[in-house]
């Protein structure tokens, strides 16, 4: 199964997390589940790497955290986008789309 996993490109994880948070504040577990479900587990992402990315982005000020209560009534750390994070998401999405388009352009040429 590991062979079919897609290796994650540099910075892509950040983009995915930021995108996930556009629908509101979520805790780390929710983000991990959402990405796994949405990609139908095609992306191989270690949860540890996900948390590292979350904390790094918090330090950069793209997202901010607050402790809240989860659906099952437990204390959980909720992350949400800051305006700086929103800006990052816009920029990164544009860059990634352009990159993908360029790569695809090459690949589809016979």
């Amino acid at each position, binding site marked *: 199964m590991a062979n079919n996993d897609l290796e994650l490109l540099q910075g892509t994880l950040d983009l995915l997390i930021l995108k996930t948070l556009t629908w509101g504040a979520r*805790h*780390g*577990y929710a983000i*991990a*589940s959402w990405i796994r479900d949405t990609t139908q587990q095609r992306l191989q992402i*270690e*949860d*540890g*790497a996900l*948390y*590292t990315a979350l*904390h*790094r982005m*918090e*330090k950069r*000020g793209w997202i*901010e955290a*607050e402790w809240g209560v*989860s659906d099952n009534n*437990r*204390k*959980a*750390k909720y992350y949400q986008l*800051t305006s700086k994070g929103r800006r990052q998401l816009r920029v990164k999405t544009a860059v990634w789309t352009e990159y993908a388009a360029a790569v695809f352009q090459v690949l589809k040429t016979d």
Partner: protein
Amino acid sequence: MIRRFPGLRRLLHIERGRATVDRAVDDELRFHFDMTMRELMAGGMNPEEARRETQRRFGDVQRTRERLTTIDRSRVGQEQRAEWWSAFAQDLRYALRGLRLKPWFAVAVILTLGLGIGANAAMFGIVDRLLFRPPPFLDAPARESRIYLMRSIRGTETSQSFTGYRRYLDLRETTTSFDAMTPYYVNKAAIGTGEATLEMNVAISGSDLWKMFAIKPAIGRFFTAEEDVPPAGTRVAVLSYSYWQTEFGGRKEALGTLMDIGPAKYTIVGVAPDGFNGFELDPVVAFIPISAENAAVGRGGPENPWYSTYNMTWFEVFARRRPGVTEAAATTDLTNAYRQSYRKQTEANPKNQPYALTKPHAMVGPVLRDRGPNERSDAKVASWLIGVAGMVLLIACANVANLLLARALKRRREIAVRIALGVSRGRLLMQLLTESLLLAILGGGLGIAIAQWGGIAMRRLLLGQDDSGPSAFADSRLLLFAIALALMAGILTGLVPAFQTGRGDVASALKAGSREGVVHRSRLRVGLLIVQAALSVMLLIGAGLFLRSLSNVENVHMGYDADRLLYVGMNARGVKRDSLQNSALRRALLAKAQSLPGVEHATLALTVPFRSSWDFSIYVAGIDSTQRLGSFTLQAGSQDFFATMGTRILRGRSFNSTDGEHAPLVMVASESMVKALWPNQDAIGKCVRINADTAPCTTVVGIAEDVRRQSMAETQMHYYMPADQFNPNIGGLFVRTRGLAADKGEEVRRALQSLMDGGSYVTVTPMTTIIASQIRSWKLGALMFSVFGALALVLAAIGLYSVIAYNVTQRTHEMGVRVALGAQPRDVIRLIVNEGLRIVLPGVALGAVLALVAGRWIAPLLFQVSPKDPPVLVGVVTILVAVATVASWLPARRAARVDPNEALRAD
């Protein structure tokens, strides 16, 4: 959210310690693991499988955990810094706005602190140079010393740093502790020729001087040991950098040219580096070998040449210990050498005071003169003044603290509201400190400017230097000192109100109306006023004591009329005269001087009070050793000597025309000498043998009043001989002018200069100038204590005024009630003035007691006045009470005019 509102974080109780960060990471990860396990088990796994799958999905838990805590810690640190800076910026804005809103308050505070800091920085600049800073470029300051030789004279030990060449050679040869040793002295010498001749300082030393400083010549070379060999030496000179710049425009061609220094021409061989000035503070123009200088001036004469006599002392010795030699070891070594040298001296001259009596020993002392045993009284006064300046700064701080406190009390409600809103006390403290530090730093800037301009004036007074010296703006030690003072003042003045306001009970401050919140007087403010009053009293008592000393010293009966006397010195440069020609020239000068309309009398004179003295051992029948009584100094003058000086003859006669070279030898003895040698006898007609007990009799023909010529405080045993009988070729002239001597100096100089041939010239110095350096320390003490004392008094008065005025406005209501109940304006005024006095009087008493205690240490600096001088004490207390009365009467008058209707309606 939180990031944008720093206060919010505290409000939400988010803590940020190290452990808290770690715990938060663990909590977050545990939640994640629990949730994942639950999901997997819900999907049908057993707990063991679920646990393994969770682990697999996560990756390396331990490493991730470490990575997360590292990231979070650095994030928290970053946030704290950002928060601190934003808080600081906010405080600064707040403080600046406060200053803008009350510009006069700001000006008053900055000026007060500026004066305080400036006075301190200027004093520090001086004391630093006198007592702390070693001469620049000194190679190994810790191993360098000035040498002191101690002897007991009549049972009291005197330490003498001045010595002679023979002694120096002995010390140099016998000691093993030093790797460099040099004589050193600074002499005034005529530099240049003709009209442009100026007397300037020249440093004279051995060649080891250049070893003791880590310097290289700017150009050329320094002089060598071979160029400094007695008896003649080589006439070479090393210029100081600044003289090279001003006289030679820094040109290389200066090397090899001849330069007139005193009586001889010297070849310039090099230039010392910029800023090098030898061991002393007086700026010098050149450095020359000691052999060359002494040979050129012919010191000691042919019979008693400078390099072989023990009897003249005219320079100091500086030495550098070998590495590893302790001060104690060097002192032992040096003492040994001095004792051997002393024995040699006694062998050569059996009349030398016996070893057992004088107990000679030596000491390696600090290079800085004023750190050693013979510190100048100027330096002592300067060290006192730095204490005084410190007191002024304390008073200034107390005043500023008081002003800030008054403001803080007014803002008490505002502060209570802020505390209630959750602003921490630390944060409030920071805010108050920011405000006072801002004020103090602005005051410090002003202080440095004051130190710059005031420092020049003070240096002139204290060090007698006319040069501007290094700029205060460029002196890093002084700048550091001023900044440290400013920070200290800022913290001191800020903490006082901060503690006061931070201490209050929030609830009561909020509950009370604006007035009741502050009505009770602050004990702290009263305490500050008491301290201020005490310090002012101490300073003013100091001022009073020094003023009295100055007036005493100025009214001292010198035994001669200093303000009518000019001393005329003769310098024969490049002109060789035999004794007959010399004698003729002196007589011509004397006759010319006597013929001038502005001159009343003139006389030859061997020595000059406070500048030079001459003594021989004398022998009197019936007295074993007159030396045991002390030294007897000698003056020689011509016929008009006593009329010129204004020294009264008490009994007998003065010199007359019959006391010629071949006539019987005569002398006039001073009162003290007569008392010492012939108590209760008639001295007239007594026989004194001078210099040897086989010498012919010199008969005492008169008794003169005592004169002061070595110390302002005491008279010496002194006697006078006719110049013709002693030696008419040595010394200069005293001229008694009609009217003040200082006004006639130039006239006399021009007239006498016309008789001088070749490069020779006369110098004319008013006697008052010579005495001025003697009374400088009292003048300085009187001036500085008065200035600082007045400053302190004004500051204290302003402080008292502001406190009373403030209290009065706070008590308008109470005054209204009193007036409504029938109190007269007079009663209200008395009430308030009494209150002011009640604050000040304990301070006055405290200050007086402290001044009496401190008097013990200041007594040696005073002149014939007790540190417990009653008129000074009473005067100062009166002044303080008067000032306190006025300072509280002004606001009291306002209180007395309160309209009871209005005051009571305001509630």
